């Protein structure tokens, strides 16, 4: 363990990290964001998802620095009387949850498919990649509608609130796995012809062992790089779905649904419901992207940027 910490400290990754101010700043902000989302229930002044503590009579209070603002609600309230700051923290929590969950799902499917396609080649590859192509030609909205319908059929309406997060994870996970599959496949194709794979075959290792223990670890760099970007994309997809009303339920707003409900109000001068979560979302996605860019530059400048 100590050894690996030491190794990490001596690594090129850490070295370049120390020299890149933007990467360090982004990382710092990202850590703050992650802490905020982890600690949302602890640090938020209110629990916006608890209907008992919100009151419609408090709706649309501007942030504290404006004339009608009160210090009770630092960033003001949304149209349902929720404290905006707390809602943003909770919304962030959901974004993080969905972002990570969806990427995990994407990565799992994508890696399995990409690895199998890349390693097996031939017909298996052709079939799997065709499926990925088809999946890719679907707008994720369609996937969302489709999966929502199935979920509803399976679980009924009552548990909708509890299911919303897993539902979105599945939707976004299923919508974007081809990105992983393609990247992994490309890396695997590059790796599998390297001689160390043949060396493993010469030893007599079985295919799955070679695939998972030799080839897969060597594609993880690209997985890591696209994962950051995919987390950012997943967060944005969630926001987009919520914006279209296909995402989080109204009683549990995410950043996207907040922006959406704010959109109706932005022309009437109630800008904070959109602007604060909007900035929050952009900043969050931005730091992930910046880190992703940096990772790409450091780890794998040649990685496909599509």
């Amino acid at each position: 363990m100590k050894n690996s910490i030491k190794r990490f400290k001596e690594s090129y990754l850490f070295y370049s990290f120390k020299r890149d101010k933007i990467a360090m700043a982004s990382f710092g902000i990202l850590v703050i964001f992650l802490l905020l989302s982890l600690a949302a229930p602890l640090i938020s002044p209110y629990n916006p998802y608890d209907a008992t503590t919100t009151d419609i009579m408090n709706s649309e209070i501007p942030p504290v620095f404006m004339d009608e603002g009160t210090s009770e609600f630092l960033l003001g309230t949304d149209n349902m009387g929720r404290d905006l700051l707390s809602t943003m923290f909770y919304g962030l929590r959901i974004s993080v949850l969905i972002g990570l969950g969806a990427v995990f799902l994407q990565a799992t499917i994508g890696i399995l498919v990409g690895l199998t396609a890349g390693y097996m080649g031939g017909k298996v590859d052709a079939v799997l990649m065709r499926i990925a192509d088809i999946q890719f030609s679907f707008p994720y909205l369609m996937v969302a509608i489709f999966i929502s319908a199935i979920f509803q059929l399976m679980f009924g309406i009552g548990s909708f609130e509890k299911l919303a997060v897993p539902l979105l994870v599945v939707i976004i996970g299923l919508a974007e796995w081809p990105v992983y599959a393609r990247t992994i496949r490309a890396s695997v194709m590059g790796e599998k012809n390297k001689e160390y794979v043949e060396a493993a075959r010469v030893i007599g290792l079985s295919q799955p062992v070679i695939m998972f223990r030799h080839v897969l670890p060597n594609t993880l760099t690209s997985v890591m790089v696209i994962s950051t970007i995919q987390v950012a994309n997943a967060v944005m997809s969630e926001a987009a779905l919520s914006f279209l009303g296909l995402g989080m339920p109204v009683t549990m707003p995410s950043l996207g649904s907040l922006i959406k409900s704010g959109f109706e109000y932005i022309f009437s001068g109630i800008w904070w419901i959109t602007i604060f979560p909007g900035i929050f979302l952009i900043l969050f996605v931005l730091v992930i992207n910046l880190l992703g860019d940096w990772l790409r530059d450091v780890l794998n400048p040649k990685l496909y940027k599509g």
Partner: protein
Amino acid sequence: MPYDIEAMNNNTPILTIKNVVKHFDISGGLLDQLKLKNGRIVREKTTVKAVNDVSLTINKGETLSVVGESGCGKSTLARVVMGLYPPNAGEIYYKGDRIDHLTHKEMLPFRKKMQMIFQDPYASLNPRKTVKQTLEEPLRFHNPKMSRTAIHDKIISVMKQVGVDPAWSSRYPHEFSGGQRQRISIARALILDPDLIVADEPVSALDVSIQAQILNLLMDAGRERGLTYLFITHDLSVVEHISSRVAVMYLGTLCELAKTEDLFATPAHPYTRALLSAIPRVGETKPKNIKLKGEVPTPVNLPTGCVFHGRCVYANERCINEVPKRTLLDNGTLVACHAVEENRDMD
């Protein structure tokens, strides 16, 4: 080892390659094979005829080198031998056991006995595994019952033998130079105590000064362990130095198989002659290479008859039409050439 006269004479074949053919289908799926010709749909396969009807035996303790131009099928042959590619036709025997059609499981005992060393020192080690992990894996896999300490000891001893400091066993490949990596590759091959090592251009990527180190190491290991080598290279001076017999390949076919001294002293096949004359030697001022004519054909569209006829200055009608058979010359050299067979004037 080759210079071990006894071993050379005892002539027990450790590996027999019989009429091996390996073609790669590169035409893709059914759809890619369909072509529109004169308004009709025809199915056309594109195959790379990498190895065509090659037969060899390797005797215990000898070093048999395979030489030839790039793309002539040397590596393919090596991989077929190692069971990495199934041959399209032909048989391969290891000490009398046929091994070319075995299942993965059935092949395992032979895997222990046959190991391979690769050309590219940068690609042949898994960059994510430490030296120790790399060496441990085959041991553990083939000897699941082996104790931890036994494994450890074995690794240390092999590392010492190949000249890599055992203290470095927890380092990753990128921390080593090309020559050191090649030593580790050799260690990985040696660790299972194999009888036969197939070395696919193990020194081609190395600098001259390092090349000598690795060749010495291979020769020493061979001597100490009584190894048999199938050695693939395109460097004739290396061939001359280390092998007991040499097989010369051209476009997937074997054109000459001879004892090293014989081959270098009296090359029979016109291609071998051209090849030998082309090696630049230190101290020779004027190159006196035999010029070949024409262009190198691709293994996709193999020429008819003798595959070399297009570039051969001695070729005649017969060479274009008829595939030459192997002829055994007096000195034991096998050669596949009409001109040699007919004793055409070749000077």
